[in-house]
């Protein structure tokens, strides 16, 4: 016969919740009670089996502990989130909007036409006049910044031995194009590059040798002076210009407009053809 009190004692004994004195008393009480011994054995086995379950929290192995745990959590007060966690979010968002806005409205560094794919198409009109610079721009392997300097200085080394009349014919338009097309943000690099090139061509590279009063040199002077006067001293000779920019003279291209209409745009087709392939007249 097992009453409720003994039943609870058996559970406490199986769970190891009794002190040694109580445990001895319970064991003495049930020593002659086979039903109680069998129930204790079941509880003990169940208790040992439960401990094998890895994911069962220890609190749940005892109803007292579980009750205590539940009561403890239920009575605990939730701490509200501090206000500063909400404050930095709009601040960060505003900062990001600020960055985005000023990146968008930052004026484009002029001129953005330098080295653009359409640059070659910009230049044939000047190419008509004999400039070879436009072809140099159009060379896929050409590096634009060093190319400019190379094209300025290579055809007309800065030297008193150069015939100004020859320079007027061959480099005047080139120098002008460079003056127009070099972006300001690269002026330092160009200046350094110009200095490297001047170093590499010593002793002919002397800015004082440029005949400043020759109008034919005006464009070249402007570029060369700006470049050399702003150059930072760099003692080493850079051999980057060892691979010269090839001033190719591609045949002049003409835009030929045909009667056929582009299905995508509704405009007439235009193609760029080599001048020698186009029938012109009138």
């Amino acid at each position: 016969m097992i009453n409720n009190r003994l039943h609870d004692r058996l559970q406490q004994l199986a769970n190891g919740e009794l002190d040694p004195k109580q445990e001895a008393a319970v064991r003495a009480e049930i020593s002659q009670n086979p039903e109680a011994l069998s129930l204790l054995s079941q509880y003990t086995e169940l208790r040992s089996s439960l401990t094998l379950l890895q994911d069962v929290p220890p609190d749940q192995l005892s109803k007292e502990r579980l009750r205590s745990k539940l009561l403890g959590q239920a009575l605990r007060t939730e701490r509200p989130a501090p206000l500063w966690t909400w404050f930095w979010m709009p601040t960060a968002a505003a900062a990001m909007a600020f960055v985005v806005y000023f990146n968008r409205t930052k004026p484009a560094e002029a001129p953005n036409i330098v080295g653009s794919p359409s640059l070659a198409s910009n230049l044939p009109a000047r190419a008509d006049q004999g400039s070879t610079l436009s072809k140099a721009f159009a060379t896929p392997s050409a590096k634009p910044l060093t190319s400019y300097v190379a094209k300025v200085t290579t055809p007309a080394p800065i030297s008193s031995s150069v015939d100004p009349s020859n320079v007027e014919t061959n480099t005047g338009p080139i120098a002008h194009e460079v003056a127009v097309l070099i972006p300001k943000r690269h002026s330092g690099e160009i200046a350094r590059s110009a200095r490297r090139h001047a170093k590499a061509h010593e002793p002919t590279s002397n800015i004082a040798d440029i005949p400043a009063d020759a109008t034919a040199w005006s464009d070249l002077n402007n570029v060369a002076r700006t470049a050399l006067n702003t150059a930072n001293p760099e003692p080493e000779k850079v051999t980057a210009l060892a691979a010269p920019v090839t001033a190719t003279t591609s045949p002049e291209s003409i835009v030929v407009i045909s009667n056929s209409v582009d299905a995508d745009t509704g405009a007439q087709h235009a193609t760029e053809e080599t001048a020698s392939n186009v029938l012109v007249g009138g």
Partner: protein
Amino acid sequence: MFLSAVSLALIMGLSYPGEQAKETEAAWKAVAPSVIRLKEGFSTVGSAVMIDPSGYYLAHKSRATVGLLSGVTPGGITFPLVRVSTDDATGLVLLQASMFRDPKARPVRTAVSSPPAGTPVIVVMANGYEAGEISNPNRTGVLPQSKRLVFLTEVKLENPTPNLGGAPVFTYSGEFVGLLNANLQSNSLQIQSAPNPFGGVAKSLTTRGGIGGGMAAHQADQSQNYGPSSLFVAYAIGPELLQRVISGFLSPNHNVAHPFIGLYVRDTPRGAEVQAINPNSPAAASELRPGDLILSVGGTSISNRLDYARSLIHIKVGDRIKIVYLRSGHETSTELTIGRMLD
């Protein structure tokens, strides 16, 4: 929460118009009274510009394929338009609004000369406007009919659009540059590429003309081509030719008088040799014959056919020009009067 705030900030930042967008919008507002939308039935097919306050509008023939069109003012008023004249040499058409006058409309101010390269422009299409830039104000080109060399204004756009054909081009100061006659085809990418300065992107395929057209064709050339992926190049006839067309359209008979000689030359080792002469032309009435070597035209020395073509760019109907030529080793000259090209 944070992500939502950031997203909102990004959307606001990106949607906020930049300075350039404001300028473009201001430019559009300035020219809008001179522009109408063209409609065929219920479809908007393009746009036209007013060239005369009496109700004459200029459009491209690709946008006015039927005789009867409707015009829609910026204020939303629809009125009928009649196609009065067509200039086949340039593809421009003259439309007239005979039954309606928009009191707010004003004729365009046509550019006297091409704006310099780099000038920002707005291109007005049927569905809005796009910002562009003049990339070459004096590109030489050949029109399909006359085979004469003309100056074209080259415009580049970053955002191509299906309604590009015949789109009016204006500078930000409101000058009318022209109507986009043609766009460069992708498969004509024979021009040498240059390194791309736009944002320092290393490589991307450059398509000059055609919305995505020819993209596959250029896959093989990818290693050779640099630049943004959607750069778009279109052409309008130059201001000198445009002025001629407009003044011809506004003449009593609404016809454009293009100069005509009827003399075609070819390059030979000796120089520019007469290849063909049009039977009904001023050249046929002169002493010039096939095989003659052209030495100069109007005082300009000629060494090849391109020189010859260039010497004819600025001539006008009725001008007298002197042509010096070589025949059988004897140098001689002839004078002829520039005629009018018949369509």
